[in-house]
């Protein structure tokens, strides 16, 4: 199921960010946005799936987190897309919206070990957490879902936010 929502505009920068990670400029690309404003309310927005990754180890948005979104097809989780979080720890576009926002079982897979390794955080090998699965249901596609994901190298939590 290919969604038109997070394609050209958001994927191209994500690909460029990946390329520059390889080129060793991860620090500049992954600098969190300055925390100078309050979050914007999503009250009354149309049904959609949005997310926000928050690095509670560093007290910053989870910037440049590599994430894979999958949907369960009755047998297994099938990848819908891969992306990176932006400088606010969010995504430029909703993950699912309009016709792509359907009831079902979903999983976000977060590359938490890579995230902290790229920041030089001291970690055991293998790290306690590597790829963190965040599973949730969209039970009622008439209702918006915002997923807040708080993580450290040693734990995480996620919840239905607003």
């Amino acid at each position, binding site marked *: 199921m290919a969604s038109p929502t997070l394609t050209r505009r958001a994927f191209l920068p994500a690909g460029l960010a990946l390329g520059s990670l390889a080129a060793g400029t991860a620090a500049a690309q992954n600098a969190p946005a300055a925390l100078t404003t309050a979050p914007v309310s999503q009250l009354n927005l149309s049904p959609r799936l949005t997310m926000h990754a928050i690095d509670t180890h560093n007290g910053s948005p989870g910037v440049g987190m590599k994430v894979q979104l999958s949907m369960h097809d009755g047998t297994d989780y099938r990848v819908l897309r891969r992306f990176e979080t932006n400088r606010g720890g969010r995504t430029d576009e909703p993950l699912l919206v309009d016709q792509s926002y359907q009831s079902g*079982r979903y999983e976000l897979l977060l590359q938490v070990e890579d995230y902290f390794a790229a920041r030089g955080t001291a970690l*055991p*090998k*293998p*790290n*306690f*957490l*590597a*790829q*963190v*699965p965040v*599973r*949730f*249901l969209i*039970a*009622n596609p008439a*209702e918006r*879902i915002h997923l807040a994901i708080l993580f*450290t190298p*040693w*734990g*995480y*939590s*996620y*919840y*239905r936010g607003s």
Partner: protein
Amino acid sequence: MAGISTHVLNSGTGRPGAGMRIDFSVRDGDGWKLVKSITTNADGRTDQPVLAPDAARTGQYELLFHVGDYFRRQPGGNDTPFLDTVPVRFAIFDTQQHYHVPMLCTPWSCSTYRGS
């Protein structure tokens, strides 16, 4: 004591999460091999260790918490469930250490961490 243990807490009631099924698996190649299914006792813990100290090996493990089934059985139910099964994947990186991995949950949230 090394090995793996867990504890389920229902953060909505402030009570132990009793009677929750947990599937414990070990990484096997590209997939996960089920070791055993456990049900939490009245204290939200397991009667036997999830993984005994002498069985601990360095590697990747998974605890699959059946959070959705648990909350369906609670008073009030939940007609638009948000959580069903919640997998927690973690590594034993030193077999001399113990890994306590709790699950704190409500119908709308869950949290896990390396506890003690």
